[in-house]
């Protein structure tokens, strides 16, 4: 082999070694959930328990029912980045965005969930189980933790596994569920079921606009913050509840074949129209005892024949709604919806 050929062979070998090394390094550097909550960026490194600079608390006006847990939520948007609001119904968050949600039952922190847009094409979902001392939380196993905290009626709270995270947050366009224009609106619903007060310093959609965090900018979020328009305060509150608890799946883009009225946060703002469609929609699932084809999503004349109420009242796996994330009925919401049907809907 002459010198040129030897040099070419060595050169090619070096190229392949380099490519192999780069491939191995990229696998090694693939981001993953840290082992401890204290390593996720939620807290100041030097002051355990103190929320880190740049991490902002927020409170959706219509909270998701989580078996009565007290919840706290935070968001981190990397400095200088913006949320892509080209599609105002589905905000696209910049790489590096993190969301945390802390669950407290009976005065004790049980778990904190992390949603992190780690790369352009990858969201990381993780949940951390708090230790006995309440000083830090440890990354939960892939399948979650069954029976992590005691609830009422002998039932227990389960820390979700990774697959459960995907079931709610989706796989096609994953992301947070309670961080959108309606949930962060400053025109907050005073009758929201399980509504929480907006404490000073909590981030709103108007704050995001003022801080130039939207691209394109959304001045209407300050001038005319979104709200559900309805003929009664009860209708507004109930639709907000349904958007938070049902709208993630019950919408045309919800990764299911659901074809009924969309309950997505951006589709329920014309509240009375949505209610009219819910009253007409025949569900494929039948309320037990009802003849085939008779069940409607909402039934004003016979409230107990409403699919929504029947499924909210169930906590049996094949019929309960929502189908996961809760083992206790939301009695307050059930009572509110019963009253709403009996008062507002029968007048229609």
């Amino acid at each position: 082999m002459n010198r040129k050929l030897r040099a070419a062979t060595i050169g090619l070998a070096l190229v392949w070694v380099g490519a192999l090394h780069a491939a191995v390094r990229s696998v090694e550097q693939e981001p993953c959930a840290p082992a401890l909550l204290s390593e996720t960026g939620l807290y100041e490194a030097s002051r355990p328990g103190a929320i880190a600079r740049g991490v902002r608390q927020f409170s959706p006006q219509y909270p998701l029912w989580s078996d009565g847990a007290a919840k706290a939520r935070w968001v981190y948007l990397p400095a200088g980045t913006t949320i892509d609001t080209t599609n105002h119904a589905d905000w696209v968050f910049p790489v590096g965005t993190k969301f945390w949600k802390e669950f407290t039952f009976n005065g004790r922190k049980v778990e904190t969930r992390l949603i992190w847009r780690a790369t352009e094409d990858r969201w990381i979902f993780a949940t951390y189980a708090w230790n006995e001392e309440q000083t830090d939380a440890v990354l939960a196993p892939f399948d979650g933790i069954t029976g992590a905290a005691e609830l009422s009626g002998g039932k227990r709270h389960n820390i979700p596994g990774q697959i459960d995270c995907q079931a709610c947050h989706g796989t096609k366009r994953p992301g947070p569920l309670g961080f959108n224009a309606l949930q962060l609106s400053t025109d907050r619903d005073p009758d929201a079921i399980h509504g929480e007060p907006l404490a000073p310093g909590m981030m709103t959609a108007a704050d995001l606009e003022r801080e130039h965090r939207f691209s394109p900018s959304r001045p209407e979020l300050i001038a005319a913050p979104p709200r559900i328009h309805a003929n009664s305060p009860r209708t507004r509150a109930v639709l907000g509840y349904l958007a938070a608890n049902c709208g993630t799946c019950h919408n045309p883009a919800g990764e299911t074949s659901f074809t009924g009225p969309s309950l997505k946060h951006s589709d329920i703002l014309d509240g009375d129209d949505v209610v009219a469609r819910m009253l007409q929609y025949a569900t494929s699932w039948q309320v037990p005892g009802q003849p085939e084809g008779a069940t409607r999503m909402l039934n004003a004349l016979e409230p107990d024949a409403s699919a929504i109420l029947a499924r909210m009242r169930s906590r049996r796996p094949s019929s309960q709604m929502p189908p996961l994330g809760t083992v206790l009925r939301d009695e307050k919401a059930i009572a509110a919806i019963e009253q709403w049907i009996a008062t507002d809907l029968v007048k229609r």
Partner: protein
Amino acid sequence: MKRTRLTQLMVLGVAMFSGAMLRAMAPEGQGAAAAPEQKKARVERGAYLVGMMGCNDCHTPWKLGPQGPEPDMTKALTGHPQDMVMPPPPPPSGPWLWHGGATNTAFAGPWGVSFTANLTPDPETGLGKWTEDMFIATMRTARHQGKGRPILPPMPVKMIGKANDEDLKSIFAYLQSLAPVKNRVPAPVDPPEAK
């Protein structure tokens, strides 16, 4: 001359190797829809997998044949017959915890009563409105369309969920290639709620 040919062979080898590497590294399903040949291959493999994994054992109603009970292949993979209304199941007795219907499409146990699904692509009663993603999500999460109620016993969904994406895509491609049959399978019946 000999050296030139050796160099050409080396360049050709590197090019082929690079092509193979790029192909191997490309994400599954990226780009245009599966080519017709790929689709055909998937349907064939799906038919093999469905036959080998015993899907007909429960999703095809059984009848009494000359040699005893056998799947009624005229109703292949159509699930529990809609006109076969099941009476309430007998209560559990001693070690007999669960019961199965004569068609092997209805099952009663601690989970309530489950009926096997219509797997043909009928848009109203089968998988006609399902997407490949929904099917894969169902098998991976053991939940209806990856988000809804749990898939109930005796469906061995945890086992099937361990299949790789390509096999699940093949199973779905085969099921979608079947003639759609309208057969509205009843919804599962809940067990009595624990007091």
